[in-house]
Every structure is written in C-alpha cells, then in structure tokens.
C-alpha cells in the first residue's frame, strides 16, 4: 500500500472518529444554549400517541444522554483508530456506536426541545417527531461509510469450460433452505398463538395491521425455502421457487471474480440471508458455496453443493464476454 493510500485511509478514519463525537457535542451545545430556559423536569417516556407518561429531572436526563453519546463517541473513536481490527469489523462497530450516539442526541433534543415548547412535561406529545427519533438511528451510517472500505481478498476460480463457437452453457439448481423452513414454522406457530385467540374472541379488528405484518413476514421468509439458482450468459440469478420472486441478480458485466470456497457462517454474519455493508450472502449451512465479487468490490455468497461448476461456467462466459468482438 502506498504512503498516499495509507494517509488517505488514516484521514478517513479520523473523520469517522470526529463524526462520532458530533452527537455528544450536540447534546453539550444544546444544553449550554438552553440551560437558562430548561424546565426542572423533562418528558422522558411515551407509551403511545398521547402525551408523555414519564418525566425526569433535566440534569439527570442531560447526564444520561451525555453518558450515552459520550460513551458512543469514546468507543467509536477507539475503534476508528484501532489498527488491528479489520476494516469490515471497524465499519460495523462504527455503525453500532453511531446508531447509539445518533439516537441518544435525538432523544435529548426531542425531550428538551418539546418540553420547553409545551411547558409541562406531561403535556408533551411526540407526534410526528417520533419519525426523527427513528431516523436518528441512521446516523450510524455516517461514520461507517466515512471509514475506509474493507479490502476484499478474492481469487478467481481456475476451472474453465471449453465452449465451441456456437456452443452455450447454463447451470441451474434448486436448493432448499432448511433454516427458512424452521423460521417459517416458528413464525406460523407464533402468529397462530398471538392472533388465533383474538380471532376466536372477535378482538381482531384493532390488530389487522399486526396480522398483515405477520402474514407478510411469513410469506417473505417462506419465499426463501426453495431457491432456484441459475448461472448463464446473463450472470447469476437467485429466484424464489415458491413465489417466483427474484431475490438476487448479478449481471455478467458486473462480475469480477468467482470463487468456489468454504462458507463459514461466522464470517458472513450467521445463517440465512445476511446483508452487511458491501457483502451479502445466503448461508444455508457451513460448507461449500459460491462467492461472487463484483466490479464495484461487493461480494455475494451462496451455499451450494457443487459451487465449482457454476463458478467455472460463469468465469468461462465472463471471459468470453470480455473478448473484443473482432476476435
């Protein structure tokens, strides 16, 4: 790695660390600006759409949110500057502490700002500001994205097929994700336990949204039970064989490297459909799988019994597609 690159990476890490300090600074600055106008007690808890049902002394609430944002900043700075940690883990850690910091600062601003406006902490209604509280969790993305990208170490599969001029190949396999079978069963049992008594008692009217959400969750998880994986001249496609929904598509022109390797759930964030910054995976078990690295340095992995065949076929078709038309 060149000196310039190292310097650029360090700058990004310092900026990520600085961005994690912003929530704590916002809490301190707002307290300083409002200190003379802050009521003795501030609204601190809401149970629904109505007014607050809990309040805390302003000094206690300030200390609490200062501690949350301060600890997040301290831990985040330590992670940002820690050299031994991998870039991926650093990004994950920064996201987590950014999330806590962002939510801490937003909660403080809402409690203090809305109580100052309402006067009585028990008359403070959160209303649409609730959305700000939710959105503040996204603050974790800022330090995470500022931090240097993980350096992907990938090698290209060696195997190739010999295809004649008018010959073409395609690979297709239907795989079953037992983990999604169990997850679907658990969701159905859970949904049944929650909603069947309500249906029997005729209390379902107010729970239609919850029931619809549960049904959607069951359908979503069930769509992963049977997956059809296809490798052909178009690239790699993963389609739900149950609902016929496309779940993943990597176009041939975007494929950079292909690997048939051993997938360890711990390295991909666990079992199931995993989405991480720059990486996603369908991990059905520990064992062989196909890893595709795209040209924009993102990776997708999927558990397959025989990943060598689709890897070699896609590599063959990718190489052929890159050949100049004149050849």
């Amino acid at each position, binding site marked *: 790695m060149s000196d310039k690159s190292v310097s650029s990476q360090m700058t990004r890490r310092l900026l990520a660390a600085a961005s994690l300090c912003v929530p704590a600074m916002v809490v301190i600055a707002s307290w300083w600006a409002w200190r003379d106008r802050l009521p003795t007690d501030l609204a601190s808890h809401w149970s629904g759409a109505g007014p607050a049902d809990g309040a805390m002394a302003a000094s206690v609430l300030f200390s609490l949110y200062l501690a949350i944002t301060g600890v997040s900043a301290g831990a985040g700075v330590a992670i940002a500057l820690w050299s031994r940690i991998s870039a991926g883990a650093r990004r994950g850690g920064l996201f987590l502490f950014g999330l806590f910091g962002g939510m801490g600062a937003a909660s403080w601003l809402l409690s203090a700002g809305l109580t100052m406006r309402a006067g009585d902490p028990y008359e403070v209604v959160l209303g649409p500001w609730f959305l700000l509280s939710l959105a503040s969790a996204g603050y974790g993305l800022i330090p995470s994205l500022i931090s240097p990208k993980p350096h992907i170490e990938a090698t290209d599969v060696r195997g190739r*097929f010999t*295809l*004649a*001029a*008018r*010959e*073409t*190949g*395609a*690979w*297709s*396999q*239907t795989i079953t994700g037992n983990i999604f079978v169990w997850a679907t069963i658990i969701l159905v049992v859970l949904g049944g336990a929650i909603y069947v008594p309500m249906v029997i008692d005729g209390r379902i009217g107010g729970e239609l949204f919850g029931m619809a959400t549960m049904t959607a969750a069951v359908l979503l998880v069930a769509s992963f039970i049977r997956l*059809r994986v*296809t490798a*052909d*001249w*178009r690239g790699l496609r993963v389609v739900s*064989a149950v609902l016929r929904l496309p779940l993943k598509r990597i176009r041939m022109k975007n494929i950079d490297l292909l690997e048939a390797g051993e997938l360890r759930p711990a390295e991909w964030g666990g079992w199931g459909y995993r989405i991480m910054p720059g990486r996603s995976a369908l991990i059905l078990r520990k064992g062989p799988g196909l890893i595709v690295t795209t040209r924009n340095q993102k990776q997708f992995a999927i558990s397959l019994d025989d990943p060598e*065949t689709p890897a070699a*076929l896609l590599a063959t078709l990718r190489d052929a597609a890159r050949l100049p038309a004149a050849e």
Partner: protein
Amino acid sequence: MLFVVNAALTVSLAEQIAVQVRSGIVNGELKPGERLPPARDLAKSLRVNMHTVLRAYAQLRDDAVIEMRQGRGAFVRPDAGPGLIRVTELAAQLMREARKLGLTQQDIMRLIQRGGTT
C-alpha cells in the same frame, strides 16, 4: 445441473437437452422427484426457443423419465433411475437402427418379443 447445447451439431437442440437430463439422472445430479428448470427459464438461459425445451421435456415425458404437473412444471419421475434411463437410451438406439434398416414398428415389436422369450 449443467446444460450445454451446440447449435452447430446435427443433433437437434431438443435432443441435446433431453440427453443431458438423462445423463443428469444417471450420474445423480438430478434426483427422482427433483424439479427441472422451468422451460421458459431454461430457454432464456440457453438462448433457444422455449418450444425447443418443451419438445425435449415432452420427449422425456413420453419416455417416462419425467412427469409434467399441471401448472407446477416438470419433475423427474420418482421411479426414474439409472436403470430406466439406460433402457430408454437403448430403446431409442434400437429404434434408430431399426428405422435405418427399414423395419416397421411391428417388426421391431416382434423382435423384442422374440428377444424376451430367449
């Protein structure tokens, strides 16, 4: 499983696909009860006409290698194993050779019956 078709061969594309499904069953890539790729998808993957794939599937169905389930697609028959595939291949080969010699279906049936008694 892997499908490879070559438009330059004299063997029809449908026959090439059918042969590969049989091979897939023989070498264990396709198991009894397993679903074959939908004809439309496989046709797109191989850049052939969908009717070519449907012809291949129809041929395999006629040979009792696969079964077509209404609205659900094509599945390898539960009783389709390497033995059945081998017999199917030999039968197809017998039919080709017999036709070259100008034998009628009745002649072929008579030969088979005679073979069965020896």
